[in-house]
């Protein structure tokens, strides 16, 4: 069972539903999509790419139709967490602070570890540099320069120094240098640590979960929408919301990532008349985007949705049409 968190936000977000259903967990999202052809809508920000809105990330919001279908098929269970809208209690505050501290300490340790391994590679060079300094020997570059300027009169002394310089480095010397260098590292300040952005709420306990009274579909209009969705889903299509094209649903023959949608489904009342202009605008829309506009309606006292496909079939020879 997948637990879908539900949060009340007061304003109608999807088709006059007062509640929007969110799903936060990646594996569950991919499972719903691949196994159950439920696409939903990603409304979150990708942690790695926060400054764009072409690709969205979790959470996924579910359409009311998707929610009802998944509930009916016993694939998900809806839970609400009232504790999420309350001020966090003392325990949670403590846990959060502790978590922040431990993350900081971990990062400081990690940084020290990395600095140490970097220093280990350099330690021989540092030792050599120090020896040179102590012996008053110049670096190679400086020495070359010096040699050309003044002739070598104190060669013997120089030789002695070089012998001293090239003596093998003792382990103890290495260790002292390393310790000295490590001591020089300043402590990691708070500003320089990374702050974790949570993608789920880590301190949610199962006891906080409350059952949700899910009422969609509650009227005739919603019933038409739901049964239309279910019918198309049963036929094996992928369905997303159709706002983009002025319909109720967009119907895809496969995963929307790989396919263009075939149908723009508009849910209408079975008996209410619509003007011819309305019908023409549907047909025109369909032909201009190479999709079929389908009217879906539910006859009274029936649970079988009727579909009518509209297809442009030409017009009289009008100039400038």
């Amino acid at each position, binding site marked *: 069972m997948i637990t879908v968190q539900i949060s009340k936000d007061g304003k109608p977000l999807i088709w006059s539903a007062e509640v929007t259903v969110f799903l936060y967990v990646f594996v569950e999202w991919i499972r719903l999509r691949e196994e159950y052809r439920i696409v939903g809508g990603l409304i979150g920000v990708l942690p790695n790419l926060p400054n764009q809105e072409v690709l969205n990330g979790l959470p996924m919001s579910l359409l009311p139709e998707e929610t009802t279908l998944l509930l009916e098929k016993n694939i998900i269970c809806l839970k609400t967490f009232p504790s999420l809208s309350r001020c966090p209690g003392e325990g949670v505050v403590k846990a959060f602070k502790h978590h922040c501290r431990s993350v900081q300490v971990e990062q400081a340790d990690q940084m020290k570890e990395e600095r140490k391994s970097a220093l280990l590679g350099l330690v021989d060079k540092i030792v050599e540099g120090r020896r040179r300094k102590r012996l008053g020997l110049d670096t190679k570059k400086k020495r070359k320069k010096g040699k050309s300027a003044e002739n070598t009169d104190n060669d013997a002394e120089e030789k002695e120094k070089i012998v001293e310089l090239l003596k093998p480095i003792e382990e103890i010397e290495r260790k002292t240098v390393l310790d000295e260098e490590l001591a020089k590292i300043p402590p990691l300040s708070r500003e320089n640590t990374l702050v974790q952005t949570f993608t789920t709420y880590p301190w949610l306990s199962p006891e906080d979960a409350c059952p949700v009274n899910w009422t969609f579909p509650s009227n005739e209009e919603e019933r038409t929408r739901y049964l239309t969705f279910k019918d198309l889903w049963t*036929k094996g299509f992928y369905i997303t919301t159709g706002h983009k094209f002025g319909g109720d649903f967009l*119907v895809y023959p496969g995963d929307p990532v790989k396919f263009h949608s*075939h*149908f723009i489904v508009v849910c*209408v*009342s*079975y*008996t*209410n*008349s*619509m*003007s*011819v*202009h309305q*019908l*023409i605008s549907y*047909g025109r829309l*369909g032909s201009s985007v*190479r*999709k*079929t506009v*389908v*009217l879906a*309606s539910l*006859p009274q006292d029936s649970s079988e949705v*009727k*579909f*009518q*496909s*509209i*297809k*442009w*079939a*030409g*017009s*009289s*020879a*009008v100039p400038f049409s």
Partner: protein
Amino acid sequence: MNNGNIHPVLKDLLAFGCGDQRIPPAAFAVFMDLSEVRAVWDLQYQFCKALDIIYLTGRENVSDIETNIYLPLPASYTVSPAWLEKVQNSLSTKNRGLILAFKDADSTVVYYQITEGLVTPDSLEIVQERKASEERRRLLQTELWRKRSQLYEMAKHNSNSINDNEHTA
């Protein structure tokens, strides 16, 4: 009104006794467009009393086996899914395409095919093919239009020579 001066088809259409006064003129406009512009084959018109509509039947191409049902409606008409289904059932459109022909006040006619169920849209290849054939037709028409005076002269010349021949004969 002098009935002697009106088109025989319009006369027939008016004589059906359609309750909706807007239907016969719409049907006539659609008839004219179908017969004169689109050159539909075996064009016929009938009246359905139960639905109070006039409908036309015909084939788009001479080779077509399938007949289409054209349903002329004025642009001020309203339709509902229930009504569409009733039309489909009573005109037995199972094997025939039902094409609604909406006629506007300026005598523009637009055609929309209504089919029960889900009809997959045409593939890109079909659309491209159709566009190409339309393009060819348009080219032919412009060519004809450009050479119209030449054609006219040719026709005149030919008919004159025929007339001359007749006279001499």
